């Protein structure tokens, strides 16, 4: 620090260095706390909007008269972990459900949200988060390719179990040129979600009295 200016002697003391470092740390933490307080509410709102937007893509508007984010159901998911199930209701009857499924992709997990009507037909599947190779594996995003829409209207019996695979594995779903692992992961995840829905159907479709929901 020689800028031709005389540096005051207290600067070279250890106490000054410690104070400087401590002061800067305090300043940085205080700024971050303030920033967090200012933005926390807005970020939570944006997240809820995102969730609502992806839910509305897998569960059509006309299928429900309730707010999907109201009182979601928590059940034991396919992997044994708790899974949040959003339920669409018309006149107190469950008309459709939406929940997240996870597949093991080429670069980590692929999180999808899928919507099913009460008979177990796929209403829609959307990828929420993934880290697949851009240009190859990211064709699972609807903005880049319409591949993900091929699940619409499918169910556990259409196609049969052997058909629930990519074409390379003898199934009916296309893989992408240069990327097989990614679509395979999504197909398996959706198939797993369908199997899980079938096994837990009675419980998922049982309408819950309003009072019980409020008590949760």
């Amino acid at each position: 620090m020689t800028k031709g200016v005389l540096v005051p002697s207290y600067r070279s003391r250890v106490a000054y260095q410690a104070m400087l470092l401590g002061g800067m740390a305090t300043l940085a933490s205080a700024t971050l706390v303030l920033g967090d307080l200012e933005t926390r509410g807005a970020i939570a709102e944006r997240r809820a909007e995102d969730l609502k937007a992806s839910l509305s893509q897998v569960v059509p508007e006309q299928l429900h008269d309730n707010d999907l984010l109201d009182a979601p159901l928590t059940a034991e998911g396919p992997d044994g972990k708790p899974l949040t199930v959003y339920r669409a209701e018309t006149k107190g009857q469950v008309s459709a459900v939406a929940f997240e499924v996870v597949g093991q992709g080429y670069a980590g997990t692929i999180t999808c949200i899928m919507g099913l009507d009460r008979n177990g037909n796929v209403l829609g599947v959307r990828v929420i988060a993934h880290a697949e190779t851009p240009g190859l594996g990211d064709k699972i995003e609807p903005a880049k390719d319409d591949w993900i829409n091929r699940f619409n209207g499918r169910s556990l019996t259409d196609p049969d179990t052997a058909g629930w695979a990519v074409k390379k594995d003898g199934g009916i779903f296309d893989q992408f040129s240069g990327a097989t692992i990614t679509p395979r992961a999504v197909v398996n995840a959706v198939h797993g979600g369908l199997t899980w829905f079938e096994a837990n159907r009675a419980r998922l479709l049982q309408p819950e009295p309003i009072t019980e929901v409020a008590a949760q």
Partner: protein
Amino acid sequence: MIDYARIARDGLWDNNVVFAQLLALCPLLAVTGTATNGLGLGLASLFVLVVANLVVSLFRGIITPEVRIPVFILLIAAIVTLVDMMMNAWLHELHKVLGLFIPLIVTNCAILGRAEAFASRQPVRAAIFDGLMMGIGFIIALVTLGAAREIVGSGTLFANAALLLGDGFRFLELTLIPDYRGFLLMILPPGGFLMMGFLMAGKRIIDARRVARTPRPLASASAAPAT
């Protein structure tokens, strides 16, 4: 007297973050599979560079050389986190696209490098200008590298630019080689290293030609290219 032209020339070409200083390679190689991704990281880095240079320059009077590095890191990490939070809250659409790149900026030693080499010894205005020029130089490098890898790797240019910049920029999205099967190596990190090697060689050739063309007095003949 601050030589703004010199700062601009340094940032954009002579002392370019990537091609001359060889900084910021980790985020660089990770995201430049496409020109669009390169532009995204570049824009986010440019913003953080300018703000970090500004803050470091403001505090330059009280920071001592002994503890400067931890102080710089602290300031930069705080700035990046703040930018991340503010974008998530108020520019959510942009954050969905750029959000992926922001945490990468903390590991970007170009920011620390500029704080250390420039902003900590220069007045605020010069520091901001340096951040701007270095940032633009970084964007140029990222987009060039991303474009080169994208053309060779997938035969397109600026794919999905509309997702980053809005629908008005859809005209940027070009498919240069129709029905191209793709050259996966170029999209993956090793391809990044290869392409960067070629681009750096290209810059060296241009620099060497420039030196050869301008006859210089003997005294400044030692102006070797920075490495």
